[in-house]
């Protein structure tokens, strides 16, 4: 029983880290006022490319790198279309998502089924769990927190860094003010374009990183719908977390609890499905967000200019 709980909690951490990276990435971008719905498509593409690279080079870390690269490119593309070309952010996001859905579908088959394979391509080279020498011996926490792949340890460091960046440095203040009011920010000399570009770059890298974890650690095969709307879940959790890094991570962990629970109890669910269908679980973050929006919608405060077009008037 104890082992079971240990395993479960460890799984929670595992599941929350890719979402955590994606969440932090999108958080950075949204804080600067850009609503990028194509986080979903970015996850799809980075997962796929990470899989391809991992398959051919048999090295998951290359997969992570390509994932980050894809994330950066896709987010910068979003930035280009919405800031430079001046298209509506939401529409660009929807279009980029569609493109990602289609491209992943095609590219996967192009790369693999072209040779008319018999079996599904799978990878042997996933990231290993690394046991941190002293810390992993600790009674409960050791097994849960310190028996994870490298990417999770990096996450432990990334979270406080982002927190400090947003709350304790002047750059965090710049980003916040751009998201709240780019007009005034530009007037007082803070370059809206520059900082948004930086947020897109870092944010895109994080989102790409999150996506790549799916095919370099969590799974050894690639499935067409493996991301299954998690990008939108992240958007929902960002709203619930009031665009604050710690609250958002908290929301992500809560969600991961439920998701990990659902994985473990798939069979159990199957038999008592009438009682608590697994789709309901999947729906939970969306339902919660809508309910919250209804109930305290007036008090939830996104960055004031989130999604609004800002064009600098010379």
């Amino acid at each position, binding site marked *: 029983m104890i082992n079971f709980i240990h395993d479960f909690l460890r799984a929670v951490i595992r599941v929350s880290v890719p979402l955590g990276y994606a969440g932090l990435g999108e958080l950075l971008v949204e804080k600067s006022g850009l*609503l990028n*719905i194509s986080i979903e498509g970015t996850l799809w593409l980075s997962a796929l490319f990470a899989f391809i690279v991992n398959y051919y080079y048999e090295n998951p870390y290359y997969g992570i790198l390509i994932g980050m690269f894809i994330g950066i490119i896709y987010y910068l593309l979003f930035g280009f*279309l919405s800031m430079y*070309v*001046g*298209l509506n952010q*939401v*529409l*660009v996001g*929807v*279009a*980029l*998502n*569609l*493109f*990602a*859905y*289609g*491209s992943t*579908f*095609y*590219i*996967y*088959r*192009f790369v693999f*089924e*072209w040779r008319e394979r018999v079996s599904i391509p799978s990878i042997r080279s996933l990231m290993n769990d690394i046991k941190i020498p002293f810390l992993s011996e600790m009674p409960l926490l050791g097994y849960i927190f310190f028996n994870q792949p490298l990417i999770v340890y990096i996450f432990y460091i990334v979270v406080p860094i982002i927190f400090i960046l947003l709350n304790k440095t002047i750059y965090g203040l710049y980003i916040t003010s751009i998201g709240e009011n780019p007009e005034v920010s530009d007037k007082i000399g803070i370059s809206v374009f520059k900082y948004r570009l930086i947020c897109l770059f870092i944010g895109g890298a994080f989102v790409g990183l999150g996506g790549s974890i799916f095919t370099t650690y969590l799974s050894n095969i690639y499935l067409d719908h493996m991301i299954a*709307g998690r990008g*939108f879940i992240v*958007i*929902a959790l960002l*709203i619930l977390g009031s665009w604050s890094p710690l609250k958002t991570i908290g929301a992500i962990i809560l969600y991961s609890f439920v998701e990990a629970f659902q994985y473990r109890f798939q069979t159990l669910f199957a038999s008592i*499905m*009438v009682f608590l*269908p697994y*789709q*309901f679980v*999947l*729906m939970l973050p*969306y*339902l919660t*967000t*809508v309910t919250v*929006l*209804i109930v305290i*919608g*007036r008090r939830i405060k996104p960055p004031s200019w989130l*999604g609004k077009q800002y064009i600098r008037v010379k």
Partner: protein
Amino acid sequence: MRSEAIVKFIKILPIIFGFSLLLLLIMVLFLLSGLNPITSCQLLFYYGFGTTTYLSEAFLRSIPILFISLGLMFPFMAGIWNIGAEGQFYVAAIVSAAIAIYSAWMPFPIPLILSIIGGCLGGAVYALIPAYLRVTRNVNEIFTSLMLNYIAIYSVSYLILGPLRNPTTNFAETPPIPGSAIIPRIFPNLRLNFLSILAFILIPITLIIINNTSFGLSLKFMGQNPIAAEFIAIDKKRIIITTMFISGFLTGLAAAHEVLGVVHAVRQGISSNYGYISIGIVYFGGMNPIGIFLISLLAAGIINGTRLVSFFTGIPIGLSDMLFGALPLLIFISNKAVEKILNSILIHRKRWME
């Protein structure tokens, strides 16, 4: 009135431009896949539109996209971002299927009529949720409609694996739609059904509503300047509710068409992203019913064409999906380009007149 002709031409320009870009992209992708771009394109157009059967298939596939796009025109023109068409489609689909199945005992065509109306209303009511939240609590409809999409998709998934599951096959699908609720075909050897020809009624009706009614005029105005709209006595709340209702209703009609007329069941993936694709199509078609019709037909034919080309030449399927995703992007970009050019022309003209 010559200026009016010029204005109309300018509206078509982005479509022509975008279509050319699309053709280019198709050829490039064919090339990359190792095919001869010219012959493959010829093949594509043959399989898309070449024979009566193929043309009718293109038309058939274009219907859901067409209906949804026509519906989306209304809220979009008024500045309401309805991204929830996908969810509205799913809700409408399951509602019409459920009604069809449970009213099967009634004589034809009663179950059919009930299912269609049920589907339309289902979509409309689901669209009213974000509308209501916007009107009463000023909640941004982008977030609400987006979230509701997933709620709908998962709810339907639950239903077709649970209470509405097909007991014979045990697949994730509803039992087949009973005969008394199937939309009859028009011609024996084509899949077109009677709902499909509704397109020819809807297109002119939409045109009339947008261009020739006070409602359509108020819509356009509100989309362009929501602040001034108030001072012109336009009732914004009423417009929000009405446009979303229309959009949901037409989306429901699209769903009824698919479920009752084409697929004859509700399965996982009953909508292949129709709700999202239509968003792009609305812009691609220049926010104009005729444009939308042409583009949906073109797009549907291209999808069918690429699928068949893939099948016969051995390249993997999915090319069309990739194209389809690129479409909206291309169109947005070409729209913006044309807009920028137009603006500079108009500014020059204004200066000249003063």
